[in-house]
């Protein structure tokens, strides 16, 4: 086996790639985005609404159940058990990416399922996070035994969520740049390294500081949780206007990197699936492919961040604003990021996700049948190509409109006059058209 054998084409995991969105649908989608943008400028409200939207606590009975320590302990224990199972499967189970539980669980159920769950239910990751649950459990036990742990360092607040962004970039590098990304051993090793960093961070800076700033997954899912109609305020579960949490501003340092990772990683995933990219990389040696992929991935992330910064600088000039707007409009990009995720991974989630049934029964591929679903055969024909295309273009159009609404609301609350707000909006509008139409264009490439 020579070293310069061409690398596998696979990305993350998944046996099927979508067919490209047909050109006519791309043109309709792009036209719809432009029309929606013009209408939005004309008819949107004249004073900030989302920012001032009120929150209502859920009924006390429901609160007691949702916030009960018992629920927390049970979910946390289940989650820790799942983490142990996935890592064990990755280490000692079969080395086949499709027959081992670890790759499908991590890349499909966890990585795609959690953003969806967060958008629907809010920040449930806070309770489901196995690293947090284990750390909390350990802290509880050590406190009971009289040895309360004091973190030796204070978290430097100016770092913001940069550590989380760095860890996320490491994760998407494994998923989209490393070859083969779905190797069970690599997935398990990555989970172990992530666990070590997370628990070390929590021990050094305190659990609260680390899980709010340093844990990549908490920051990532937390971003999507802000789209949800449910949130936690002062120890109460509240019902709020969906997306209103994105219109409040007050972003931590490094949030721009989080948003850029969402947009840039999905854009790179799409780009690297095109014939153009595959034709240029498939004969290269594995190390070369991984390096090119890394450069491409980082390039896409930097592109997302720098276009945003350019648009914000332009908005500031157009509106004649004195204040720094660099973090002001980040919330408006979150729905667009989620739309990117839906557009790219909807079919993968539905098709590859079915494999979790046989894998759950036989996670190591030892021939077990724990739940009687070992022989379940996934149906890969349940999605018509046309269905996938409409979902893809529809998600991007809806995400675009939501982004516009949030940016508009932000502008109204930041500027004293509607006129300045609208002028600032032109720049954000241009940026969003670029992101949405660009995302659609990548999906339409063969």
């Amino acid at each position, binding site marked *: 086996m020579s070293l310069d054998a*061409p690398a596998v084409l696979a990305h993350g995991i998944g046996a099927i790639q979508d067919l490209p969105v047909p050109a006519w649908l791309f043109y309709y989608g792009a036209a719809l985005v432009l029309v929606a943008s013009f209408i939005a400028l004309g008819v949107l409200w004249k004073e900030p609404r989302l920012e001032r939207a009120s929150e209502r606590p859920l009924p006390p009975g429901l609160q007691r159940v949702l916030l009960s320590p018992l629920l927390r302990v049970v979910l946390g224990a289940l989650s820790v058990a799942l983490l142990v199972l996935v890592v064990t499967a990755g280490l000692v189970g079969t080395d086949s990416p499709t027959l081992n539980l670890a790759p499908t669980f991590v890349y499909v159920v966890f990585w795609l399922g959690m953003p969806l769950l967060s958008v629907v239910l809010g920040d449930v990751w806070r309770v489901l996070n196995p690293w947090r649950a284990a750390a909390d459990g350990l802290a509880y036990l050590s406190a009971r035994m009289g040895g309360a742990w004091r973190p030796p360092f204070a978290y430097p607040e100016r770092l913001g969520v940069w550590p989380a962004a760095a860890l996320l970039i490491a994760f998407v590098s494994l998923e989209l740049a490393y070859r083969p990304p779905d*190797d069970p*051993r690599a997935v398990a090793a990555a989970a172990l390294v992530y666990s070590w960093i997370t628990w070390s961070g929590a021990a050094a800076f305190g659990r609260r500081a680390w899980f709010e700033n340093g844990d990549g997954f908490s920051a990532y899912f937390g971003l999507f949780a802000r789209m949800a109609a449910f949130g936690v305020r002062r120890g109460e579960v509240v019902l709020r206007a969906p997306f209103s949490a994105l219109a409040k501003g007050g972003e931590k340092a490094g949030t721009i990197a989080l948003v850029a990772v969402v947009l840039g990683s999905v854009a790179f995933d799409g780009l690297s699936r095109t014939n153009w990219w595959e034709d240029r990389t498939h004969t290269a040696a594995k190390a070369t492919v991984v390096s090119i992929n890394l450069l491409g991935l980082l390039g896409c992330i930097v592109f997302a961040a720098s276009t945003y910064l350019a648009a914000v600088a332009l908005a500031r000039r157009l509106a004649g604003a004195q204040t720094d707007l660099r973090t002001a409009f980040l919330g408006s990009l979150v729905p667009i990021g989620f739309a990117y995720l839906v557009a790219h991974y909807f079919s993968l989630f539905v098709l590859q996700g079915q494999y979790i049934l046989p894998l759950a029964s036989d996670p190591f591929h030892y021939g077990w049948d724990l739940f009687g679903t070992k022989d379940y055969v996934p149906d890969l024909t349940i999605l018509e190509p046309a269905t996938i295309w409409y979902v893809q273009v529809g998600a991007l159009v809806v995400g675009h409109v939501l982004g516009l609404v949030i940016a508009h609301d932000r502008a109204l609350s930041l500027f004293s006059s509607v006129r300045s707000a609208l002028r600032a909006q032109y720049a954000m509008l241009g940026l969003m058209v670029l992101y949405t139409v660009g995302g659609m264009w990548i999906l339409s490439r063969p």
Partner: protein
Amino acid sequence: MLSAGVAVAVVLFLVLRGEEHDEEPQPPPPTATQPKATTTVETRPRPQLPLTVRINSRSPGLTRISVPRGRQVLLVVTGEPGAEIHLHGYDVLRRIPATGPARIPFRATIPGRFEIELEE
């Protein structure tokens, strides 16, 4: 670890348009103006031959092949005996026998793009 290096990857591209069905074609609905046929018309079409796709796994490269949906396809893969061919999606694994090329027949029912990998 995957023991695989991939010497050849073929991406099969199943297109929605030009959908074909191998089922018995529906006879045209009888209409009033249709003259009564006096000769026996052969209603069975000639059986459609499978679309044969030949791949030489010794020459590295990336090729893409479009196949109409519903079509019967026969992959004929030549190469080193013992090498394993993996048709993704349909999840067919076949070794190249010592006696000749590996033959993988399948019906193109799943729309999408799939890799055909040579795993050594």
